[in-house]
């Protein structure tokens, strides 16, 4: 632990691009309108096989996300962005600090925070329809309610006619659309997306990003979007939090003032290009 301290200090004081606002390391997070709050959160993992030596994944992380806001957590591989998401989802607990949902600490996963995973997490023994309705069915929602919702959602994610297919019969993009439908069917207040389109080709990815924004217009969930792709972060977000490399901290926060839904033309706008340039510069300092 003590031997890693100088390195942490170096990263903490690394200068970011001057034209972007610095993020205070200890801000006043946790106001009433905030949906999700991370307050001075640190997370360390014990290294297997060593005597009490720990890896610090994130350190003094302060994040506040407003209701119905779309926030991207952007950063290089290993910056702790997935750790942050795992703590919000309730898969992991913070070593220090608090992770709050509506002011209450998050202790376990739950249907109020739906997750779209990067890897295949659809159940291969269930059809598309069965995958989408499994959660609501198990929680005792009446079939009359979930049946209509499922039909509507499958239509919205353009999977009508594929209800009886199995996940392995679908393309990667279609599988992710099933995941989105499965996540939205419980009408969650928070939607966590962990590099959901990382494995897709760029054309499909753009279509998926547009779909997310269209669905946001209808369902208005708070979306936390984990990505390492600068263009993706700008395209889908209201706000981007750029994380430094390990131990992860929010290095800078950028707002994207653009109405939603957004179309392909936004990708070539001056605002987009400018944001992309500055974020790429800032991100470059974090990649080694």
């Amino acid at each position, binding site marked *: 632990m003590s031997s890693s301290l100088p390195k942490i200090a170096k990263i903490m004081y690394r200068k970011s691009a001057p034209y972007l606002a610095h993020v205070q390391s200890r801000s006043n997070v946790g106001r009433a309108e905030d949906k999700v709050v991370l307050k001075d959160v640190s997370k360390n993992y014990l290294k297997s096989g060593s005597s009490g030596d720990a890896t610090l994944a994130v350190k003094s992380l302060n994040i506040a996300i407003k209701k119905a806001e779309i926030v991207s957590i952007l950063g290089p591989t290993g910056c702790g962005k997935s750790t942050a998401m795992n703590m919000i989802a309730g898969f992991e607990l913070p070593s220090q600090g608090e992770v709050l949902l509506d002011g209450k600490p998050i202790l376990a996963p739950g249907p109020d925070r739906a997750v779209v995973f990067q890897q295949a*997490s659809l*159940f291969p023994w269930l059809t598309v329809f069965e995958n989408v309705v499994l959660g609501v069915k198990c929680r005792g929602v009446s079939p009359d309610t979930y049946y209509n919702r499922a039909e509507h959602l499958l239509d919205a994610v353009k999977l009508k006619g594929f209800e009886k297919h199995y996940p392995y019969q679908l393309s990667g993009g279609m599988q992710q659309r099933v995941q989105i439908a499965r996540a939205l069917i419980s009408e969650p207040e928070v939607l966590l997306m962990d590099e959901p389109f990382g494995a897709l080709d760029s054309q499909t990815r753009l279509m998926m990003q547009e779909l997310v924004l269209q669905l946001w217009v209808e369902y208005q969930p708070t979306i936390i979007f984990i990505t390492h792709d600068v263009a993706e972060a700008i395209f889908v977000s209201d706000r981007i939090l750029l994380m430094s490399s390990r131990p992860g901290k929010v290095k800078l926060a950028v707002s994207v003032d653009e109405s939603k839904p957004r179309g392909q033309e936004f990708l070539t706008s001056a605002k987009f290009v400018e944001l992309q340039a500055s974020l790429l510069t800032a991100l470059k300092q974090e990649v080694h």
Partner: protein
Amino acid sequence: MKRIPPILISSATIVAIFVVWFVVTNGGLVGPTYLPSPQALFWSFMRLLTNGYQRTPLWEHIGISLFRALCGFLLGVAVGIPTGLVTGYNRLADAAMSPVMAFIRPIPPIAFIPMVVLYFGLGEVGKIVLIFITSFNYAHVNAHAGAAHVPIAYIRAAKTLGLTPGQIFRKVVFPAALPHIFTGLKVAMALSWAVVVAAELVGAQKGLGFMISDAAQVFQIPVVFIGIALIGFIGLALNMVLSAAESSIVHWKGR
């Protein structure tokens, strides 16, 4: 050159074996007490079909062996799969069971024969108990492995969907473990069939194992070979039934 269909090559192998067999037995290269000729075996088989062996019809020998094997197999599977899933899913159950299972697993089932005879006698119960031990062992270890290796993404997805631990066990862990379970079923089936034959070698009055050991003692060598062949064909058929069930139930395997 045209591609030769695999079925033709397989058939050619079978034909070749019969030709070699016919030549060496009829040419006097191998005596009939060591290896009967194909035609001698055929006529012995016909006699077995009409007269049976030791006043018991052939189908009864087959039937009693199958009955013992399937009873032991089904009982072992019925206990082995649920307990394997529980020990694979639950850390405490695993810690409690693993010393016992780790000790029992490497013991060959036939090593239990003397004690099973002592406890249960030479009747049906002893044989079925022996096959139960065999089948339980392999059903348990594979179900355990299946439940212990459910991808973390499945468990996490189930938790965020709001499934209770019981629902996760029934609706996620169990189906996710099915490919492993079927591997266990196939091994358990093959060994149940092997152990029933071994168990019938001692103190049985009926069954294919009894038939081959009894026939060997009175030098009815064709009957021994017919018994061996029947054991082989039935074992193959049992495996094929399970494989067919596997490919229809675990349709997602390997995709």
